[in-house]
């Protein structure tokens, strides 16, 4: 990982010095131990701030979209020939690259607007899992030593295997290396345990409808509709979200549980063929709603119905942009059976 980090800094310096990019979005060490936070780098000198480690959790595609859109909006009043492209360099792991592919499939910006610095990913640490392991104790000091975390808390020093606190989505990640990149930092990372990818969904499907509804209701009852999931999601980039539209008002604002259920249901349903399982929504959720149980189902359906994964291939339309005459249609109702 140090090698990747070194190469990343060199590459970033070069790109900035040669003015091939205007800004590089990457990760820097966070202010708390065992954290990393997004950073925006515009000069070669700052490039040494960049880090790449198991705490780099954010899906930076969100910022790429934000930066390019902000640049575009700021130049609205200029003549087309006077407008300048803002090239965004981005440190890209598997899920980030898939989100970038989705943006490109959806014609949000052009490939030329980004320079993709690919990094191999072996998963990120789930802070909520770690906090549970430490019983909520504050981390005073912490470092990563090979495959173990060395942590100092008020009650003493502890060693925890990184594997035990990796995020759920990382443990079964299928695409942990970038699907597109302009420069790859280091060798591709080994695959994770993909066999168990849909284990949670398969289990849930076996429950009765009543049991599933009870679980959905219970999870959605936790939601306070802060919309943090939406803000963090790289696929949620609409200028006006359906949740805030008033003509028509898609989602009611009452305290009735169905309003929250409908909001969550529709936000999740917008992720058909668009959710890359980066875990952003889950990590920002202040109430710990089990969104992944439902989002992963959409991914599974995409694979079983359309043989596609979100953002997997750049030269291929997204699942819901595409259609085939011979798509499966077992769900179509036919009175008296048969077609």
């Amino acid at each position, binding site marked *: 990982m140090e090698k990747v980090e070194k190469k990343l800094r060199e590459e970033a310096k070069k790109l900035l010095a040669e003015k091939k990019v205007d800004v590089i979005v990457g990760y820097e060490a966070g202010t708390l131990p065992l954290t990393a936070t997004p950073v925006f780098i515009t000069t070669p000198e700052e490039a040494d701030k960049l880090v790449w480690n198991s705490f780099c959790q954010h899906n930076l595609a969100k910022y790429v979209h934000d930066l390019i859109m902000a640049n575009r909006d700021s130049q609205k009043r200029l003549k087309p020939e006077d407008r300048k492209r803002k090239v965004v360099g981005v440190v890209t792991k598997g899920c980030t690259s898939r989100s970038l592919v989705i943006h490109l499939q959806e014609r949000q910006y052009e490939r030329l607007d980004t320079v993709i610095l690919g990094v191999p990913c072996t998963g990120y640490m789930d802070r909520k899992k770690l906090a549970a392991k430490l019983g909520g104790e504050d981390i005073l000091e912490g470092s990563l030593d090979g495959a173990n975390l060395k942590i100092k808390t008020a009650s003493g020093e502890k060693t925890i295997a990184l594997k035990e606190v990796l995020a759920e989505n990382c443990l079964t990640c299928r695409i942990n290396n970038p699907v597109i990149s302009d420069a790859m930092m280091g060798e591709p990372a080994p695959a994770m345990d993909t066999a168990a990818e849909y284990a949670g969904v398969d289990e849930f499907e076996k429950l009765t*409808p*009543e049991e599933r509804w009870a679980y959905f209701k219970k999870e959605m009852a936790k939601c306070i509709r802060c919309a943090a999931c939406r803000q963090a999601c790289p696929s949620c980039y609409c200028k006006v979200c359906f949740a805030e539209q008033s003509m028509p008002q*898609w989602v009611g604002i009452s305290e009735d549980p*169905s309003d929250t259920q409908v909001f969550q249901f529709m936000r999740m349903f917008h992720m058909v063929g668009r959710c890359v399982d980066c875990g952003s929504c889950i990590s920002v959720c202040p109430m710990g709603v089990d969104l992944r149980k439902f989002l992963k*189902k959409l991914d599974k359906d995409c694979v079983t*119905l*359309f043989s596609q994964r979100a953002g997997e291939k750049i030269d291929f339309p997204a699942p*819901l942009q595409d*259609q*085939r005459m011979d798509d499966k249609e077992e769900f179509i109702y036919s009175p008296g059976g048969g077609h």
Partner: protein
Amino acid sequence: MSHHDKPAGKKSEGWEPKIVAIVCNWCTYAGADLAGISRIQYPPNVRIIRLPCTGRINPFYIVKALQAGADGVLVSGCHPGECHYLTGNLSARRKFATLKSFLNYIGLEDGRATFTWVSASEGERFAQVIKGVTERVRALGPATKLVKKLRDVDVAAAK
């Protein structure tokens, strides 16, 4: 939250299923017309909403209908390959395949949302679809999941 858990019991006496049918202008609506012209009888439980094409249907329409108290939603358009706009119903098919699967996954009963194709010449099939869907929804009883209950109305009804 308790009002959401109310068993169908009392309410289902004299209850008639309310079904919202969202249909395309070119095939199913014409099919419904044909059923009418041919004087084919079908249950009066269905409220038809006509749209240009099933591809025009926002999945939200279906969810909103369920939230607003529809006991069942039916979506029907042209048979695949016969879309007036060539591929509108094929796009719709992908959308609805995932929507139905996702609705079932969160625990809605299978018969609440129904998708089918009825062409302009299938007046008989239209009547059969409405009959079949009405029977299915009737067997399920009044919808309780995702339904928004207006408290004031509930309180007034209780008095």
